[in-house]
């Protein structure tokens, strides 16, 4: 069975809110954060 532990994204929760800092403008797809989510495999079913 799989268990998702936590989102593993560098700086995800450290990002400032929109009110504090101008939001980063995204002009190209690969400027979006390369997110991946950690999955912990205890055993497969």
């Amino acid at each position, binding site marked *: 069975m799989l268990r998702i532990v936590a989102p593993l994204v*560098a700086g995800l929760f450290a990002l400032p809110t929109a009110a504090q800092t101008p939001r980063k403008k995204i002009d*190209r797809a690969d400027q979006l954060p390369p997110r991946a989510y950690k999955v912990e495999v205890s055993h497969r079913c």
Partner: protein
Amino acid sequence: MLITDPKATGALMEAVRQGLEADLRDLDIEDRATLRSYHSSLANIALLQGRLEDALALSAKVKELQEKPALKLLSGLSLRAIVAARRVAPDKQAETFDAAYRAELAALPYEQVQAELKASKAGLEIVSANYLAGSAEERFDPAVKEGMLPQDLALGAIGMAFTIREILPRRDAMVKALQETIDAHKADKPDIWAVRAVTLSEAQHLTRTVIAIWDTGVDVTLFPRRLWVNAREVPDNGKDDDRNGFVDDVNGIAWSWTGERLAGALRKVEIPAERLAAAARDMKGYTEMQAGLDTPDTAALKKKMAALPKDEVKTFVESISFLSIYGHGTHVAGIATAGNPAARILVVRAEYPWQIIPPVPTEEWVKGQVEIMKASVKYLVAAGARVVNMSWGFSPKEIEGMFEANAAGGSPQERREIARKWFDRISAALRSAMAAAPTVLFVPAAGNANSDARFEDFIPSSYDLPNTLTAGAVDKAGDEAAFTSYGKVDVYANGYQVESVIPGGETQAWSGTSMAAPQVVNLAAKLFARWPRLTAAQVKRLIVDGADEKVVTGRTLRLLNPKRSFELAEVLASRAAGGKPAAAKPAGGKGQARTAGARPLPP
């Protein structure tokens, strides 16, 4: 199992929700396709988490972001009916869903959404829990084993979980309601293309025109009198007779995935013959279902899918994938050369992986792709090609995706960086080769992702060169196809349910911007055949200026109009000959001529 275990999907959904909400909060994203994808996944998550009001609000946001009229009309339809059902007592839910779903369908302007309703019904009829579970295992296993699920795969997994939990239990009711809606409206869409068509005949004074079909290979036996032939090469002797670096390049050249030079205009069949034949039947059945038909092939496919065991999904999917790749170039060639006896096909064949998990990209692969780009353009220029069909493309995301599928390439950031670096090398090679061939008109397909090709950096369709002409897809009535990408589309052509041949000679109706591009190539080749002194830039201009303008939700689409482009070319030819500007008139047959004269074209 990730998509069927509520605990596993529950944790994944919560993690993804946080990630997507952070991006929407912290980043200024203007790209509507990205926003649609994020909000749509968030709406599904909200529904699965029981946050019904949030689900409705997010779904409304997706609808607001839709630009294509049919997709806007249909956006959130099922989700709203599910929410309505969730709000009543369990024993009333089925009945409430059915009533809400039917009320939504009844309120739609059928003529605007009929193609999408038929396609939705086809999708519902073939999907099953086994199919989804089998696909998920194949697609996600390498990433899951590594313990990391990249976002695109995670969104896919959540979409599958949503289908299993929310759609499949209601599938029979949905199919029945859709069928009754379709049956109640027998009127089919009008075909706008026949009156615009131009057909050339042997009797006309035509010049042979070389069309490069840069694709997955062509069954040249189906086009006996329409082939470019390298007279200096002896067929099948295993030698490079003309010493141009290619062995047995009688009708063109071929490349392996990693850039090795191969011979043969058509790929070898790499799956058992009976699997290929079964895939052809399945594909035919599916396209007929999409068209709303009820045939022996559609019945057989439905029966097969209903009984498909999980462990046979890989074989099924990969057989269809092989057929799609194997047949692609032949189908394209049939469209590109129809009605043009002067067309001569030059094959540039490139091999693509057909397995669910593609090979890991390597430095050798990048070098091979760079070589393919440079040497193919050089070859087709030397062979005298006037126009090139490019029904393919890729972006950094595809390279990243190959790493992700294999759980290779390091951290997500490292994958992103290497994908960009390698993409830039391949793109630079292709772009500079195309720019250095101004006498050739390159016609890329826009892409089938319903996204902005420029935002995605999807190439070659996003190139803005004087000698590229990007094709988007509409259907037989000229309505934008749900899948067609946009951003840099010069002209739209019929790319939905287009009849052409596949290897062996069978006719099938395939869909994609891959089928729209050869319609544009077809017109370009006819213009070159009739007026060989036209330049690539002139032909591009004739095609764009000849197109009919159609305004859709504030956007102007140009629909290919071969007859009108021929009229403009007649005027141009008359001026070039020093005569008085000829009045615009139909090039042949009966048709609707417009009276506006041609604007001057660049020399």
